[in-house]
């Protein structure tokens, strides 16, 4: 089975317990304003252009049928994004890897070959594999196949998801996933629609079903100033946590704006205004304290570890 991914990252230490390898899949049903990996949204491969890498060899110009690539300063390629047809015919001509395709098709075997390279580190640290994206649930069949392989090799598996999918396709994953890193972005359904392009009904439904099915879940809530960073949303989080007693915990994630700079590589424009800034540590502490006062169990990224003590 094949799937388009846009990266495999080893020594991931913030995407679940222990030392992990994270597989980033292409394709996401949500359109979050603050999306940090906007190149992951489309399931199709897309062009990335990094001008700094261009060595001004000129090899790409003839390959670009719509003439989106033009001679720019210092002879480097200048890319007029609106003209780009995303057929990626320029990519093979670029030895300098200034023009690259985001997204490559891989098989579960190819992914596992990389994942298994760090198996000793997972075993010693209580780590494993994390499926991320995009949203892994965008292609549940592939997830299932990959998770089956991980299980067969005894690799701890996390799935990081928005939870937006059909329960019928999520349910088969339940016995294969050791820990769900389940995003919850907004309590108010209307605002959820405004921020992400979808309502949160399905997401909350699936969360409850997962909980009822005995899944181990860490609820992760991004805090975006001026958007969902509101007391009523924190109250909403607390209410869910109260309703779902077996949650491993809740983790608030501060908004980071360092993704902005990469948009240009994909010819994209930011949808979140510049005025939205990351919260400082004090603000984060206050939000965490707010939840704690409401009886919410807070958990860090190492929650849900299979083995918490490293073996010598």
């Amino acid at each position, binding site marked *: 089975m094949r799937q388009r991914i*846009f*990266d*495999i*990252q*080893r*020594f*991931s*230490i*913030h*995407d679940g317990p*222990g*030392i992990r390898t*994270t597989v*980033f899949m292409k394709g996401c049903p949500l359109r*979050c304003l603050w*999306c*940090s*990996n906007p*190149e*992951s949204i489309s399931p199709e491969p897309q062009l990335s252009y*990094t001008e*700094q*890498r261009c*060595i*001004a*060899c000129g*090899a790409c110009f003839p390959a670009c049928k719509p003439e989106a690539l033009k001679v720019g300063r210092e002879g480097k390629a200048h890319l007029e994004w609106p003209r780009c047809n995303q057929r990626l015919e320029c990519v093979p001509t670029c*030895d*300098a*890897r200034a023009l690259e395709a*985001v997204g*490559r098709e891989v098989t579960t075997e190819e992914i596992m070959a990389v994942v298994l*390279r*760090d198996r*000793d*580190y997972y075993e*010693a*640290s209580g*780590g494993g594999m994390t499926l*991320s994206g995009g949203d892994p649930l965008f292609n549940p069949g592939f997830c299932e196949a990959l998770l089956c392989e991980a299980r067969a090799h005894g690799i701890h598996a996390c799935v990081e998801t*928005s939870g937006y999918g059909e329960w019928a396709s999520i349910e088969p994953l339940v016995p294969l996933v050791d820990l769900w890193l389940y*995003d919850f972005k907004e309590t108010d359904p209307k605002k959820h629609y405004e921020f992400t392009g979808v309502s949160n009904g399905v997401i909350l439904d699936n969360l409850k079903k997962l909980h009822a099915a005995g899944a181990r879940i860490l609820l*992760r809530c*991004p805090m975006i100033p001026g958007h969902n960073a509101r007391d009523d949303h924190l109250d909403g989080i607390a209410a869910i946590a109260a309703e779902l007693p077996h949650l491993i915990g809740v983790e608030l*994630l501060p*908004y*980071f704006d*360092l993704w*902005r*700079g*990469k948009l*240009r*590589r994909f010819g994209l424009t930011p949808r979140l205004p510049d005025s939205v800034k*990351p919260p400082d540590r004090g603000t984060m502490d206050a939000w965490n304290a707010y939840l704690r006062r409401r009886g919410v169990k807070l958990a*860090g*990224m*190492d929650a849900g570890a299979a083995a918490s003590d*490293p*073996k*010598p």
Partner: protein
Amino acid sequence: MRKGRAGIACATFPRPGGMTRRTFLALAGVAPAARLFAGKSPAPSVPAISALRADILRSGLSIGLHRAEVFTRIFRDNVDQPWIVRKGLALQEYLKTVPLYLREGDGIAGSISERPGAMPVMVELGIGENNIYTGERPDRKGHLKGQVPEGIRAFWMNENMWGRYRTEICGLPPYKSPDEVPESLAYKFISNQGHLCPSYSRLLRVGLEGLMRDVARRIEGEANPDKVAFLTAAGRCLAGVSTWAARYGEFLASEAARCTDAARASELREMSRIASKVATSPPGTFREALQLVWFVHQAIHIEGQGYSCTPDRLDQLLFPFYEADVSAGRLDDATVVRLAENLVLKMYDNSVWGPEHHLTQGFVMGGSTPDGRDHTNRLSWLFVEGATNLSLPEPLIWIRWHPNIDQKFFDFCLTRLLRSTCFPMMWNDRAIPDALMGLGIAREDAFNYVPVGCNELAIPSQWYYNPGANANYLASIEAAMTSGKGYRGQWKWKGIAPAAGELRSFEAFSGAVAAYVRRSIEQSYGNEMKTLQAQMRWGVTPLTSCFFEGCVEKGRDMTAGTKYNYLSCGGIAFANAVDCLGAVRDVVYERKEATLEELAAACAANFKGHERLRAQLLAAPKHGNDDPRLDDVIRMVEAMRDRPVKEICRDPRDGSHFGNSHVVRSGAVKQGLVTPATPDGRLAGTPLASSMAASVGSEYSGPTAVLNSVCKTDSAKSWQCGYQVNIRFHKGMIADDAQRQKLRTMLNVYFGRGGQELQINVVDTAMLRAAQKDPAAYSDLVVRVAGFSEFFVRLTPEIQEDIIARMEHM
């Protein structure tokens, strides 16, 4: 979802994919350790130590001539005596007459010269700057000029080890004027053998008196004139050290009498008592033992500069004294930490040419017994604590990891990285003893190993590291591509391998490289054996020999042979060599993008006009990324050196085989400056790989991939004498308990799988700010960010700011 935290960095240097929630955390790279100290504020345990540290750092660069004058006079007055006797007489006379001093706040007596900050010149070895030093500090080139009087230089120009090596061994015509002597000489011609570790355990048992008695007993009835000469010299040296210590006893008493500060006066009186006592008697307390070790260790440096000299295993050696003192209520841990700090400062102060240059001294803590028990003791903790309080680039601090290491101690050591930025460095008892036993070293000796120098290995009193050949990989690759001529037609190598045009397969090409590597080993072996002859005749060290097993018993200097005589074949730029071969296979033989001749032309032109070809070379698989496509190349590059070394190289003294090592530190930057562009895509003049794990800036798959790549090498068969692996992390990785636990776990796995060595460099914001202000001083600072690496100073200001901003969030 929150994967965007690493955004900006990737905006400039994308890799094919995306980024995780906080990919930015892991930073790995290579840079000389010393670079990392700028801007660090030290935190010694007491103000006196802070003052001493400041005093030492303030000392400028100056030359002390007392040693040069005494040695010249004694050697001139005793021409009829054997060389070694002249050396012993001269050292004794020096120690009898050198003016004494003690820095304010110093609690350990004994200095390298007659004046604070002044460095002696080892005239009987060679008068010259250390070419490693001037390679690192070109601005300091010529600083010795005019410092040594003409008369002394004229006396020695054909008379010292360098002069005699030239005329008597190389058959070169004598110098006519001292000005003909080169300004810079290799370390082997201005120092003793270097990379060694004396053993002080017998010294501590029987004292100087006991050692002198050993020599006196041994010389009785000895008829062999060579042995008599050695023993005479050894006796003179020991007597000199004893006199020197006794003189300190008197000097410190008079200092105490003059001192107006009651507390300091009392300490000086105690120091005076200790010096007088250990001048002859064995020590009875921790402080007495430490002082005696320092007297001898310092005298060993005076005898022969002591390049890369490790003072035995101090935590093991001094523990009985510590235990006895503590149970008698004479000593507390705070005092031990202070003395450890003091010792570290003494070692730093000892560096020839002062704080700018380092002798690569260091000491090692912990380790396992041959049967796997943990040797870590309370002193191991206290020494690591004291040493890392100081934030100095030298001495180096090492620990020995083993499967049963106290994980609390290991964690403590990792936390100390925050203070020191790169210490302690780590060696692995699971790997090193096996490699040493493979050479033929007995198990109990192999488990007593110590690191020496940048990162070489030795065994106290039994084996010292001495490079006896060198595999020049990059020149060999250049030769193979140019039919033995070199890019500039600078070589005339003929008949070694087929011409470049005939190398029609990668196997033929790698075979040609191997043939040139073999030739480079043959040549360097020949040269190094000449140097060894010079060391054996004029580089003798009778004092140091008293602390090497069997020398006094056999009546011969350590240069004539120690218990084990395994010389080493070094090599630098292992990672570049792997990358070069991988790139040639990929670009020339598999994808046929260029011929070997075209590639050679591109390298010769430093890729000017060949940018596409360079991009293709850079895109080829790179060592350090756990890439299976290079697995066979790694073994191939190891074998290129191992086979000829096994066939060609033998120690001339006892026929021992050689070991292998990866020469590190200065070589990478200095050699890089004079190395043309290489087919891995590296530009001319840029640093070579100082880490054997990856070439500069090319590890883009994270630290586990780096460590896995290292574990693909065969450390027991190919790296018996050591290698170096650098890895870099942001301080957040160390400061955060949960992250540090992951780091420790990763290291446990790496060492458990047999990785020999690891050095962690810690990066923080202050350092990056300093690099922005002074890019030249940080030209080799590499940051690895979200899967790519780049020289920090080459990043655009915006990207630098983004990196700093991100680090602040960690």
